[in-house]
């Protein structure tokens, strides 16, 4: 499976010098990052820093100008619709559940490419077990659920693909504080119980630093900081990038 030049203990996902341009707008300006197997990696930064674009670049949803995505040591060149079968599941921003489908049908969408009903049923049961809140409502349309439940559904739908890497784009956006806590707890539980590697884009800094193993801070399409959650808390990097100081991260290095 693994190519000879990449040892099996290499990063699960490696981005090398990824640049994304939307016309004249430079969304990502040469971003390189690694995600190790089993990690929870947080991507933080102010609006427009390019956090979500990193995930979209991996999923083939953003126009990548230069740079490469390596998955398990191989270059990832699959089209968007093939990536889920490579073991990467994407939980998009805004939940985007299919409101006219039932909860069970929404979940099944996550692995319908399988063509294996028994395996599908097994995964459905496993996901229901992880999200007990969904079970009693499984036949109700997704539109009948609260925002928090829809987010749980979106997470569950991503897990139906039984992914090695789960990409979460702003999973707590627009949710009440108590629900935000529940979502972070659930993400931590997924990481612990299923050993799923998780890359999460978040604006809720405190919450995501509590569950992350490592964090990247993005600013204007560049990586401004990389390190443990503690290193982020200790540095002035977040106030620098959020307040728009000229040389982010300089103060902490002095």
């Amino acid at each position, binding site marked *: 499976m693994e190519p000879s030049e990449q040892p099996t203990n290499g990063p699960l996902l490696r981005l090398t010098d990824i640049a994304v341009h939307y016309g004249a707008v430079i969304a990502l300006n040469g971003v390189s990052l690694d995600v190790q197997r089993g990690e929870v990696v947080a991507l933080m930064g102010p609006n427009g820093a390019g956090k979500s674009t990193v995930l979209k670049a991996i999923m083939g*949803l953003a126009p990548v100008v230069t740079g490469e995505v390596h998955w398990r040591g191989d270059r990832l060149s699959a089209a968007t*619709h093939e990536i*889920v079968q490579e073991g990467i599941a994407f939980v998009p921003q805004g939940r985007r559940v*299919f409101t006219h489908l039932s909860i069970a049908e929404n979940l099944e*969408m996550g692995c*319908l*490419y399988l063509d294996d009903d028994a395996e599908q049923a097994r995964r459905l049961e496993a996901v229901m077990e992880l999200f007990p809140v969904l*079970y009693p409502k499984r036949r109700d349309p997704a539109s009948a659920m609260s925002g928090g439940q829809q987010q749980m559904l979106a997470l569950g*739908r991503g897990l139906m693909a039984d992914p090695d890497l789960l990409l979460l784009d702003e999973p707590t956006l627009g949710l009440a504080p108590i629900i935000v806590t529940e979502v972070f707890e659930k993400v931590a539980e997924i990481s612990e119980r299923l050993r799923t590697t998780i890359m999460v884009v978040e604006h809720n800094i405190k919450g995501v630093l509590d569950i992350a193993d490592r964090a990247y801070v993005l600013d204007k399409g560049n990586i401004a900081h990389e390190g443990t959650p503690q290193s982020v808390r200790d540095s002035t990097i977040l106030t620098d990038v959020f307040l728009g100081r000229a040389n982010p991260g300089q103060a902490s290095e002095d």
Partner: protein
Amino acid sequence: MAISAQTDADAAAEAPTPGLITRLARGNIELWANLLVITWAIVFMAWQGTGFAITIGTVFAIWAILAVSLNLVVGFTGLLSVGHVGFFGIGAYTMAVLTSNASYEAARTDAIPTYGWPFFAALPVAVVLAGVVAVVVGVAFNRFRDDIFVLVSFGFAIIAFNTFLNLREITRGAFGIHEIEKPAIGGWVIDGELEFLLFSLALLALVVLVSWLVVSSSFGRVLTAIREDEEAIAVFGYRVTHYKLAIWVISAMMAGLAGGLFASWTSFIDPNSFILLESMLLVSIVILGGLATIWGSLLGAMAFVLMEEGMRFLPFIPPEYVGQARQIVLGVLLVLLMLFRPQGLVGKYRL
């Protein structure tokens, strides 16, 4: 285990479905709409007699095939196409050209080539040809979404109409094609009004069955998901363009079938049957009945046919204005519908 225990608890907790009378009393609009249209149809047909009922039934069957097929694209998949009449026309002209009467044509100075095919040989060709054109058009259309899609489908309807009008060597342009074949099985020709009605209803049943199989399959669920969020569905491993193309072609083939049936029923067609307005009326029927519901399209087609035919009997509309009046009435009806019941008579989903 825990899950099965919960199932029983759930079943017990589910409230019983309220009875017919209760639902009526509660003002269930869907039920009222059903009762209204069906009662209207029965009373109207009983009043006007068998011959009229047969005609109405046949017109209904053709419109219903078109409406159900268009609903697959517009309602279930969320692609608002106003070009459906193009595929209807392709089916009708295929039937007309392949089966038109050779001796009749030979007597004309502007004769077009005749092939003398039987109905049942021409019908599959009509269906397949509509499908082939749909593949070509669909590959081009697949890059468009939302309002741009409406515009390009509009363009298709215009191109189709102008082709029928100007490809005179084959379609005889504005003069139309006469003496189109009736269906015949062995020596039995389906030329009686009643037989043709039953045949039309059989084809409608086939279309409804196929549509039902499509929308209740996992394929149909992907279509619903495409309607709601095209980008999200790609992330889950679906090649969205393939699904859109597939349903587009299936829908076009059904419209081709309706076209073949229509040409044979009227035995004469000209380009006026395939103008953009017909497409608009068709979209109106789909919206009137309800998006993403097969039953709604049947109900919408019935309501439309009853209204259209019914207006002939209104004493204050001179017969020569009935055609225009139906457009006004339908227009007003659509505006009212959008204001007060945007999901249509029995639909749940809004455009």
